[in-house]
């Protein structure tokens, strides 16, 4: 996982976790408090509804009592019902209607002792109908009860009570009440999320209209039983129980919960977006210098220790960069020392080799001169003959020493560095190459090869050595030697490939050592000279070889605009 990903995850957790916890806590607390508040309100409303219902029953009773008092003083009614005065019949028939309007009742009927309706307010022309059980049932209910009263327009559900009045020794029942409809119920539950429903045994009930939304739940808050004078089988009526149910719609609470949830989700989304953006910005800000530092560090090796790690940053990254700079400078110094030590060792080896070689070359000369001196002393006459006899030995030794001198001279050429056309050098080397029979030399030259910064003579010596080695690697079996040039990251690369015997790992490891050779008569200085010459040009050598598959030696030279730096070592593969 990248540093950026970790930073973003950390930001997300830090920013979102507290918000989620707060949101959940606030929602839970709000839910509990609102529910408790609603429950308390519902209980209070239930109590109010019950009290209101009781008060309405009492009010009906009070109005019936007042009506009873008024009837006691009503002489026209008295004459009609006690004396049978037919002239007052119309008055009596309309009496209940007038009284009903005066008292604000919705139902009122006056019945005689036999239960005959003397006057009815809600159904004027129902006079003379017998309904003796109603006053008795209402009295048995012990207060207000629900009854189904007849009207011309249909049954009327009313909350009714009964009272009585005695006139001339005769008892008259007064049955009156208020209509129970949705408006009546609505007055018991004044709007909001509360509703009241009335369930009647064996009948369809009525209910108030509510503002409840579809799919919302209604919670029953309370149930109150009310006596209900219902018709039973066979026409007889009895007192049963109707149920007044107060319900509360959870629509408002549900809507509030949904709204809070939406806002919380929105807040979390906004926070997540901000956290993502901030973490992305911060991660980019932190990881970019690290990435740049990593790229700079990747360019560091023993031959490229001139990477600039200087920085103005005063943070940890700046400190790390400066430490890397210090480290590269130390490595550079160490590399210089190692190269000096290597050079001194090489010079020592070379001195010992020169000493050994010179001694080897001087030994025959010394022997010949000692022999000539002995002849001159002992046999002067034969001096000329002996000299002539021994001169080839002297010439051979001198030639050996001359050759040796030339070879050693090749180890430290002087450079004349200038822009150089590597392709032209490759063509010249190819033209002068001495190939074994049945061998072919192939040129693969890049057309867009940039000029290289090199000494043309040195470059020619490099290629000549490589081509010579390649030809030798063919072992006279024939094959192909290829000289190729190519552009490589702004610089030029020259490659000499052969299809010869290739090298083992051990041979490769020693291939650049001075005087190491596997060829009979070889000097062991070819690749050693190539390595030094390439290093002097500021380039690099890479050898790819496999036993039996041939060898490829690539020389990468700096471009023309390159400033000289420490030479890179040879690579082996």
């Amino acid at each position: 996982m990248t540093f950026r990903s970790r930073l973003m995850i950390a930001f997300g957790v830090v920013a979102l976790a507290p918000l989620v916890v707060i949101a959940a806590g606030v929602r839970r607390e709000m839910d509990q408090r609102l529910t408790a508040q609603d429950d308390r309100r519902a209980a209070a409303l239930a109590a109010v509804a019950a009290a209101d219902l009781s008060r309405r029953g009492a009010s009906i009773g009070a109005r019936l009592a007042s009506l009873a008092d008024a009837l006691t003083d009503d002489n026209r009614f008295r004459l009609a019902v006690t004396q049978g005065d037919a002239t007052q019949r119309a008055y009596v028939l309309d009496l209940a209607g007038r009284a009903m309007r005066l008292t604000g009742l919705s139902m009122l009927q006056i019945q005689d002792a036999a239960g005959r309706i003397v006057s009815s307010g809600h159904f004027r022309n129902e006079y003379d109908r017998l309904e003796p059980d109603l006053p008795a049932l209402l009295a048995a209910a012990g207060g207000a009860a629900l009854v189904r009263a007849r009207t011309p327009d249909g049954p009327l559900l009313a909350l009714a009570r009964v009272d009585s009045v005695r006139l001339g020794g005769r008892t008259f029942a007064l049955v009156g009440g208020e209509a129970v409809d949705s408006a009546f119920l609505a007055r018991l539950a004044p709007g909001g999320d509360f509703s009241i429903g009335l369930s009647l045994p064996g009948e369809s009930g009525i209910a108030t209209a509510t503002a409840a939304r579809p799919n919302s739940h209604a919670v029953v808050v309370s149930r109150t039983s009310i006596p209900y004078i219902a018709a039973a089988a066979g026409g007889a009526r009895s007192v049963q129980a109707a149920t007044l149910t107060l319900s509360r719609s959870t629509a408002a609470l549900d809507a509030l919960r949904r709204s809070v949830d939406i806002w919380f989700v929105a807040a979390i989304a906004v926070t997540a977006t901000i956290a993502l953006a901030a973490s992305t910005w911060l991660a980019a800000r932190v990881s970019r210098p690290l990435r740049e530092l990593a790229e700079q560090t990747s360019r560091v090796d023993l031959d490229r220790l001139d990477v600039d790690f200087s920085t103005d940053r005063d943070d940890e990254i700046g400190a790390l960069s400066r430490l890397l700079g210090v480290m590269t400078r130390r490595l550079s110094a160490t590399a210089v020392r190692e190269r000096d030590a290597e050079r001194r060792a090489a010079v020592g080896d070379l001195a010992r080799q020169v000493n050994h070689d010179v001694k080897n070359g001087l030994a025959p000369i010394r022997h010949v001169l000692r022999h000539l001196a002995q002849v001159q002393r002992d046999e002067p006459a034969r001096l000329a003959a002996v000299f002539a006899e021994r001169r080839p030995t002297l010439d051979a030794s001198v030639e050996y020493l001359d050759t040796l001198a030339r070879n050693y001279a090749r180890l430290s050429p002087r450079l004349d560095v200038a822009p150089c056309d590597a392709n032209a050098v490759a063509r010249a080397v190819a033209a002068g190459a001495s190939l074994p029979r049945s061998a072919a030399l192939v040129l693969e030259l890049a057309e867009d090869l940039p000029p290289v910064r090199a000494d043309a003579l040195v470059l020619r010596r490099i290629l000549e050595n490589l081509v010579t080695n390649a030809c030798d690697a063919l072992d006279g079996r024939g094959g192909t030697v290829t000289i190729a040039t190519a552009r490589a990251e702004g610089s030029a690369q020259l490659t000499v490939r052969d299809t010869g015997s290739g090298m083992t790992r051990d041979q490769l490891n020693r291939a650049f050592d001075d005087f190491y050779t596997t060829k009979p008569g070889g000097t062991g200085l070819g690749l050693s000279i190539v390595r030094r010459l390439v290093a002097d040009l500021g380039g690099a050598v890479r050898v790819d070889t496999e036993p039996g598959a041939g060898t490829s030696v690539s020389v990468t030279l700096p471009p023309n605009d390159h400033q000289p730096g420490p030479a890179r070592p040879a690579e082996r593969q």
Partner: protein
Amino acid sequence: MPASLDVAVTDAPDSIAAWLSERGVYRVSTRAGDTVHVEPVVADAGPALALHRVPVRGARDAIDAGVDVVLTGDPEAVAYARTRADLTSLPSVWNRTYMLLVRAAPSSDGDPAPALDTLRAELAADAVRVEARPATAMRAGSCVEPRGATTPATGVTDAARPRIVFPRGDDVARALAARLVALGATRRGLLAALAGSVANAGDALRAEGVDPREAAQAVESGGALAAVIPVSPMRFPECGFGAVPITNADLTRVIPLIQTRERLIARRSLTDRALAALAQAVSDSSQVGP
């Protein structure tokens, strides 16, 4: 004689104007808004009248407001006029007959049961609050006013709408229908004698006001078990009590229930000639009584 008398009526002015025209005394001259102006057929035979409607319970207010003449059936207004020495009243002719229409074949013997006389008397005495009397029996097959085609009746409709309809706004018809509904619970036998289907409805029977033009049609189309409708005896005098607006007399039983009349209440300050003209217009008498 005043050029025009202001007359408050508790019925529709058009209906009153039509009734006066049918009596041959007055004719409609102009209409201005809700007011109908009538004038004597014979020039200078009486004052012109401007008929405008007041609520039934507003008749006494019209009297107190000083209107010249009030034509109403409201017993409270009539009783109030009797207490006022400056007012005189005169009963009109029995100008309205209330019929019960039941969808059934008419009886060849007229009314289905003699007990109907008792019912008519009771209805006239107790069920309505206007001056009323039992209607006389109706001759079979007579006095059917041609009407347009109606929707055929179906029994399903009867069962679905067990109701007795009456012209909306007619308090007398409403009271009669209500009494018939009440009789469904108290004297079902009598109701069965009138119409079995009405009696069978029992407690489900209702009284329902409908558009006056649709009351009779509701019975023929099966929309109601019965209807109580008023008819005017003036339009078809030969029928005795008026024509019934039904399409097919063979499928509808027509039972006269009661007849009603109104009272003309006038100020005594009007001229004798004006009072005589009014009396001639609304009653068979030429004098306004005390």
